[in-house]
């Protein structure tokens, strides 16, 4: 399925293996990571990935749900959103 670039955000208490877990999921689903940035503010882990899921066989809805589920398992909040919403808001 053809889709736009997606922003994945992970917010939560820092611990070992958060990035590994998310990246494993992305690799398994043929989702390509274009950019990663992260910062830790007062023990809180903030990460953003820009990914290209064009070659993934899964529907976008399913990816959103599965990432959310992984977040619940490891105690962080994971969201996947189309990049447009950020682009529209912050760029003229």
């Amino acid at each position, binding site marked *: 399925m053809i889709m736009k670039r997606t922003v994945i*955000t992970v*917010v939560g208490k820092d611990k070992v293996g958060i990035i590994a877990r998310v990246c494993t999921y992305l690799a398994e689903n043929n989702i390509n990571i274009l950019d990663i940035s992260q910062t830790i503010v007062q023990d809180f882990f903030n990460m*953003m990935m820009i990914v290209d899921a064009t070659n993934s066989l899964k529907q*976008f809805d399913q990816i959103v749900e599965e990432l959310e589920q992984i977040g619940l398992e490891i105690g962080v909040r994971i969201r996947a959103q189309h990049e447009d919403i950020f682009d529209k808001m912050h760029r003229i």
Partner: protein
Amino acid sequence: MINLHEVIETNKMIQQENLDVRTITLGISLMDCVDPDLTELNRKIYDKITRVAKDLVSTGDKIQREYGIPIVNKRISVTPIALVGAAACKSPEDYVTIAKTLDKAADTVGVNFIGGYSALVSKSMTTGDELLIKSIPQALSQTVRVCSSVNVGSTKTGIDMNAVKLLGEIILETAELTKDRDSIGCAKLVVFCNAPDDNPFMAGAFHGVTEGDAVINVGVSGPGVVKKALEGIRGEDFETLCETIKKTAFKITRVGQLVAQEASKLMNIPFGIVDLSLAPTPAIGDSVAEILEEIGLEYAGAPGTTAALALLNDQVKKGGVMASSYVGGLSGAFIPVSEDQGMINAVEAGALTLEKLEAMTCVCSVGLDMIAIPGDTKATTISGIIADEMAIGMINQKTTAVRIIPVIGKTIGERVEFGGLLGHAPIMPVNRFSCDAFINRGGRIPAPIHSFKN
């Protein structure tokens, strides 16, 4: 490329500051449903609405999931029913059958409100208009989702005072018929001057006769986001204040524009307008009154309120206009009382009166909105309140509206609870002096002069 800071900012607006798309409203023309046979008319209306709007709710849900932005309401507006039903309806009861059809169609497609049980009578009423207006109390008491509005005046035509008189009585009758539910019927009835054809917000939405066959209009909201932004610049001068509101309004409106275009593409229905209104809800932190407080007032209603609101309204428009190619509807700041916790607090503290609210409507986007008054208020007094508000709109070339609820069986000091987005409200006192002779004159107020502006 988007950076982490910007992503965090957007998601904070959504998760902590109540940024949402308040409504995707699908406007549907019913002109092609007109039929002299009432049964046939009802069938055509039901078929058209359920056909055109069948994907509305699922589309809204899909956009919500993909962008992670809540889309609170999916709604429908239709051509003013007074026009659509004029050929078939011979009595108010005939019109009520259409209200029930609209209610059923809304239920089938899963929307919570359907607007357009309306009449446009800014100069005077046709037989059909009058029958529809007389059917409003029954229609609103026998349906759940139907919203009604009547445009009784405009800058170009003046004010139809016969309709104003009639609507005072109709509002009371609607209150009486829904008195077991705190007269909630009146919360779904708006009286307008200069009503816009493309307003996506209920209860005043209808699909104007100048519109196309179907159109997607979107209303965005985010008082909490503006409030939060202003918290960061306490004590700064007006230039900084205005700049901050403008920038925030821009960001909010961009989201509306994105959602509108996406919905339009997915449903293959043209995009109409984005309505960039700050629309409060009873939720904490989603209040226009709190913005006014943040600007520097102890309560909404304190001296300075009208100026603060004027500034807020204007900056919202300035920021929003840049963000969307097509801005329309009401666009500005809404000041409903029952739907805004800060307004409720202001009334309860004694800071905000009906008269101050009237002054505020001169500079904001709508009018006297969701105000509960004693149930024993006279019909002529309600008509007088409407006439005042319509005059403000007519002279100032702006939309004004009255959505006032005389709560049967309750009086000053008591409260009403409408529930949900409609909120709760203290009953406000109304000026007790009579305007009977004024309202009973009959006829219309002429259009104002369009020169010598002072």
